[in-house]
């Protein structure tokens, strides 16, 4: 089997794996002798840490499982192979008046990846996670069994596979219920807020009337500036809206700079500038869906800006009771450390039940931040943040994680033991071995 180096979005780990490039959904999994290797499916590598890596094992590349199977433009039911990118789906469905029911912050993830991480987006408080809109999927196990999984068929495998990080087997295809839209525009508003208090009030007032809400927060803000940021909310524009001007332009970050471009000086400067980017406190505009949902997709390989050491993302969610205090404590620790990045996102998640055993969102508030990789110093900060999250009864997001300790994973995801019953014996990942190490 040929070998290839695989990395994840954080670019911290670059590991050599044996590769099996699958070519279609009918392919059988190769046979491996017991114990000699394990498989892990790999879509587009947009997970940040080691959940998409399998050190010493075999990667099942799903990039060529990129076929559409069926699409009904009347009902909005789409069936496709698991390697299809959400960007490809959008190119197909938007001109026909349909949209993804849930989308994460990048469209360059595969359907399989969206299911394996049970991704969520700006409309979580309305529509829940991606898995809620998957009607059925086919799971290929290493013993050659093909299980059709749905809420009413192998429901336990369905619940294990959604958010199951690729460990229950290979998802070959999936069927999704899309949602109707009138046009590709979003009526968006950006509001500057000066404190966390204001953020939470804005959430309360917006969550009823706005389908999409998310905030950028200044992670370097201390004291009076703690928790200041920009609140973004929006709805699909009504069908008869006038189109706005939009031309899709993607650029590519040209090379990896020798050191991270984000450091404590550039951070403060950028954050101040960004916080004040609009003159008025409230700004209303009609935008194409691409810059609204995928602001970073316009710069391909932006993750290079963190330099050769790469970066970590810390994404946690804490329950809504005491949510404001906990977030304030987290932001306080981060600001005091001087570390962090201008990419800091705050979002309220709703109570729509997540269908997966290991699904991340809960009713509460989620904070996500990028940190350039600063080794030990960063890990000390993370340990302090872990302590705050654990005490609050929260958890970290495996899709973004590269270092959470096993006990924090297990306390955050109480259904992990139930989940182990559905892991395919020939599948494993670096993430899973790491969080199960002391078990």
């Amino acid at each position: 089997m040929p070998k290839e180096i695989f990395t994840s979005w954080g670019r911290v780990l670059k590991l050599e794996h044996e590769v099996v490039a699958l070519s279609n959904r009918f392919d059988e999994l190769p046979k491996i002798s017991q114990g000699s290797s394990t498989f892990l499916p790999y879509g587009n590598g947009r997970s940040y840490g080691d959940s998409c890596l399998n050190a010493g094992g075999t990667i099942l590349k799903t990039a060529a499982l990129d076929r559409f199977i069926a699409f009904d433009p009347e009902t909005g039911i789409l069936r496709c192979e698991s390697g299809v990118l959400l960007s490809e789906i959008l190119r197909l469905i938007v001109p026909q008046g349909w949209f993804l029911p849930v989308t994460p912050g990048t469209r360059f993830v595969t359907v399989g990846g969206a299911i394996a991480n049970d991704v969520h987006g700006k409309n979580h408080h309305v529509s829940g996670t991606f898995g809620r809109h998957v009607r059925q999927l086919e799971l290929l196990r290493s013993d050659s069994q093909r299980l059709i999984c749905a809420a009413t068929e192998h429901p336990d495998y369905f619940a294990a596979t959604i958010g199951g990080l690729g460990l229950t087997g290979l998802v070959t295809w999936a069927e999704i219920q899309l949602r109707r839209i009138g046009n590709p525009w979003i009526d968006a508003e950006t509001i500057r807020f000066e404190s966390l208090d204001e953020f939470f009030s804005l959430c309360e007032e917006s969550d009823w009337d706005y389908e999409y809400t998310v905030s950028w927060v200044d992670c370097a803000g201390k004291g009076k500036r703690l928790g200041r940021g920009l609140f973004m909310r929006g709805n699909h524009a009504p069908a008869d809206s006038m189109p706005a001007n939009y031309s899709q332009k993607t650029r590519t970050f040209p090379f990896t700079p020798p050191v991270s471009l984000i450091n404590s000086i550039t951070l403060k400067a950028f954050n101040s500038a960004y916080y004040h980017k609009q003159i008025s406190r409230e700004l209303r505009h009609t935008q194409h869906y691409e810059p609204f949902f995928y602001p970073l997709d316009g710069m391909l390989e932006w993750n290079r800006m963190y330099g050769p050491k790469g970066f970590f993302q810390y994404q946690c969610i804490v329950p809504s009771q005491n949510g404001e205090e906990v977030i304030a404590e987290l932001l306080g620790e981060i600001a005091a450390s001087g570390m962090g990045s201008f990419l800091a996102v705050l979002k309220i998640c709703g109570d729509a039940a997540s269908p997966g055993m290991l699904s991340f969102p809960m009713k509460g508030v989620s904070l996500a931040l990028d940190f350039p990789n600063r080794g030990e110093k960063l890990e000390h900060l993370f340990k302090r943040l872990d302590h705050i999250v654990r005490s609050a009864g929260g958890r970290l997001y495996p899709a973004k994680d590269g270092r959470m300790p096993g006990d924090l994973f297990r306390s955050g995801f109480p259904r992990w033991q139930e989940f182990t019953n559905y892991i395919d014996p020939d599948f494993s990942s670096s993430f899973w071995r790491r969080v199960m190490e002391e078990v």
Partner: protein
Amino acid sequence: MRKILIVGATSVIAEATARIWAQRGDHLFIVARNKQRLDAIADDLRVRGCSNVNAYIMDANDFDAHVPMLDAAEKALNGLDTVLIAHGTLSDQPACQQSVDLTMKEFTTNALSTIALLTHIANRFEQQKKGTIAVISSVAGDRGRQSNYVYGSAKAMVTAFTSGLRQRLYQSGVSVVTIKPGFVDTPMTASFKKGLLWASAGSVAKAIDNAMRKQQGIVYAPSFWCIIMLIIKGIPEFLFKRIKL
């Protein structure tokens, strides 16, 4: 709106090219041996916007099946104006060296079957005085190398044949495009270690579509292979024979 026949439609390069055409609204008649994979491709093309796609099962090495297939294509699409021949296998050179049978089979698949098809198609297009015929050859056909000369010489046959055909059919307004891909990342090359020179099937598909629209003669895909092969072809034989290429 063109009426396009694709032989070897389950090839990754052919599938990628078919997608470009489906999205453009062309009508397609796709031919391959494996029904399950071919039907999956047809479904995908339909979802992507092809209003008329027909899947037809045929083995290119079954020469008797060529005429019925062409008749079926013309019937299904109400005529034919474009053909892409994309079937083939990457010969196992060491195994071929030990077996005359295997070597002959490889020549049949990679050269003779293509030539048989082209003989029929050329006559039909010459009569209708219009059309575009594209054939996937390879840079391997530019000069025989010890690592793959069975495959290389089969492709050399295809390159020479299409060159003559191009000249003949020019007089009738029919264009013949010889496509020479370099290293392409597909299931055919799954066991090779990939490097800088490797291209994706998608980029080769774009090059094919471009060359066909512009009615070019010989196209290297990606184009830098033109320079590489110029250098390879320029090495004098007394030196070339000593190299382990």
